[in-house]
């Protein structure tokens, strides 16, 4: 029986990579393959689903294929380099270190290490699976012998939670009829939330003096988060920029549903799952055309060529002031989500990984 075992630095609940790893494992098992998850660290809630990677050698069997979920630095990379089994990378991208320069040196060093690990692993692997063509191009540049683009598994179907009505009422009560711009993602220099603050400031001057910006996501770079907060206060936006974190899925759905437009000015994205969440919520999207954002979004949003506040404010105003356009974007978003339907992505993963496993058997 073919075995495809996954290795992931950390298996966390309510985490995109964690969800993807477990969903892929289930898909592989459903296809009749043996598939386990090996980790460097696991959360209490997911510990039963994983085995520590150091235990793999005693469980290794001939014919195993190893699949590494690569998105951060980890000793798992060094471990896999020493293994004889065919290695497949599932590359979710690593933020370039320069984004953290001057903001957080230890994070800069960590992502620099992760990038060095990608550079070493790419030529050693038999296949690189990438969430996007943008990520695939990085792998190819690093010497990966073959790549396939398969999106990350995101479940936004019927099982996704509905917006929490209490949360939605609470939000609506706070801002009344003001325009709400939303961004979801960690507070981090590459996500460029400060450009969102600039856009909000200009939007309030030009279009709606009561407009608000909702930022949802963890403060993973405290110095950047503090700078964004101080910047907003300096511009007189202390009450207009609202941050939230640790939301339940239903609460997050309420924040999406509450927003008039989802605005992403991130300067580096390997895929950008929040774009899909916004499409699912029926929130029209305005996004900077950077990294993989354009290919993830397709025609389901307005792609702006620059994060300059004038352009962003005008684009947001166009979406909020033109119901026909907003409706068209939302409809396009729902159609676009079909391309990322879990059943379709699962089939694609099984096909791609089957090719690796069968190819190896054939060669043997």
């Amino acid at each position, binding site marked *: 029986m073919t075995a495809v075992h996954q290795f992931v630095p950390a298996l966390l609940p309510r985490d995109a990579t964690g969800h993807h790893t477990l969903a892929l494992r289930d898909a592989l098992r459903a296809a009749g393959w043996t598939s386990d998850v090996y980790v460097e660290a696991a959360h209490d809630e997911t510990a039963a689903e994983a085995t520590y990677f150091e235990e793999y050698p005693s469980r290794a069997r001939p014919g195993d294929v190893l699949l590494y979920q690569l998105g951060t630095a980890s000793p798992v990379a060094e471990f896999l380099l020493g293994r004889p089994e065919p290695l497949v990378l599932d590359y979710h991208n690593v933020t370039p270190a320069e984004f953290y320069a001057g903001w957080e040196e230890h994070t800069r060093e960590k992502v620099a290490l992760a990038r060095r690990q990608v550079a070493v692993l790419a030529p050693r692997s038999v296949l690189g699976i990438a969430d996007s063509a943008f990520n695939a191009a990085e792998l190819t540049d690093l010497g990966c012998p073959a790549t396939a683009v398969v999106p990350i598994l995101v479940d936004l179907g019927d099982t996704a939670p509905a917006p929490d009505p209490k949360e939605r009422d609470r939000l609506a009560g706070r801002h009344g009829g003001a325009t709400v711009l939303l961004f979801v993602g960690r507070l981090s220099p590459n996500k460029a939330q400060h450009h969102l603050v600039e856009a909000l400031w200009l939007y309030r001057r030009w279009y709606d003096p009561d407009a608000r910006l909702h930022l949802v996501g963890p403060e993973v770079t405290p110095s950047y988060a503090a700078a964004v907060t101080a910047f907003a206060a300096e511009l007189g936006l202390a009450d207009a920029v609202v941050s939230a974190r640790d939301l339940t899925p239903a609460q997050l759905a309420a924040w999406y549903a509450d927003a008039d437009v989802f605005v992403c000015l991130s300067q580096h994205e390997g895929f950008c799952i929040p774009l899909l969440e916004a499409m699912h919520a029926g929130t029209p999207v305005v996004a900077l055309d950077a990294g993989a954002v354009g290919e993830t979004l397709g025609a389901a949003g307005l792609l702006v060529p*620059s994060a300059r506040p004038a352009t962003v404010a005008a684009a947001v105003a166009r979406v909020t002031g033109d119901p026909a356009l907003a409706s068209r974007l939302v409809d396009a978003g729902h159609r676009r989500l079909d391309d990322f339907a879990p059943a379709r992505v699962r089939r694609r993963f099984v096909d791609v990984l089957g090719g690796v496993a069968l190819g190896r058997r054939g060669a043997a």
Partner: protein
Amino acid sequence: MPTPPAATPPETAADGSAAPPQGAADGVDYLDQVMAEIDAEVRRRRASGDLPAGLERELDELFLEFSPVGLQGRARLRETLALVDGAAYVDIAVPVASEKPIGTYVKRLLRTGLGWYLRYIVDQVVKFAWAVSRMLHVVVDHVEELEAAVESTRSPDLPVEVARTGEPATDWWRPVAIEALAGVAGRVVHGDCGDGSLVAALVAAGVDAYGVDPSEPALAAALDDGLDVRAEPVLDHLEVVADEALGGLVLSGSVQWLRPNERQRLVDLAASRLTPGGVLVLHSATPASWAAGAPTLVRDLAPGRPLHAGTWAFLLAGRGFSVAAPLTGGPDRTLARVGASTPDADTVNAAIDAINELLLGPGAYLLVATRER
């Protein structure tokens, strides 16, 4: 939800909303049209004074004031060092407060019981941390001494108005630039555009052109003419433009005397921001002309010097440009040869030829380079 009064584009349907074209595949053409209208809205705002030329740059600079990135030199070093000092002390007195009375008791018991063990470990950690901190203080002191020494040799920045001595887009190179840029796919930006005369000529030729210039007063005429111009240095502007977003780039003016590291950054940015097939037009004084004719303040204080055309061609070719042979023009200060009747005419004319060749001749050149696909 308030409807933005100024957001409705000129091309609208009867109900006030934009009319999507029928049958556009995936709406891509429609979205392109919407983006063009958004761009027009921004231009209209710029032209009407709603968006002062330097406003966006000022917002960026304001943000940097709140960031450690924005702190420069000594302030940044000392602030970071203070963080190290603050983190170098490890407190062994673990808090014992708890919401439950028994919790406080258990925590205190653990702290007392493990105190001897933790103290032994922590003492060593703190010693190491302080040793590192002391070493960093020594390093910072040395760095500051070094900075002071370097600073003492630095020339003050040129006032941007003084620095604006590049030859404007005069008759000899304007038509060449327009011909080179006509028909490029994408927007064209003129760095150091000054009064915007070249931008206006490009727009009149059907090119989607705009300009940037670090001097806000220099842009006054362009703004009065309703041109799309912004008050920022071309390097800063290119930093925030997306990759492959430009169809053309015109470099002139102070680009001639950038510092070496800035010059390299400019070449790198030009290569990444231009779309494949995009055109770069570079106008510069010749080194000899600049040395002889630029204002003394510029010659004395400019951080760099104009390059020869061949040197620019070398730098651009190294970043994937194919560079056409340079054109020369501009002020020609060549000395006229003397007549044959002049005593020792041959000797004098030979000297004049040598002087013309080495020092004088056309005062400027124009390079047209294309980013290879």
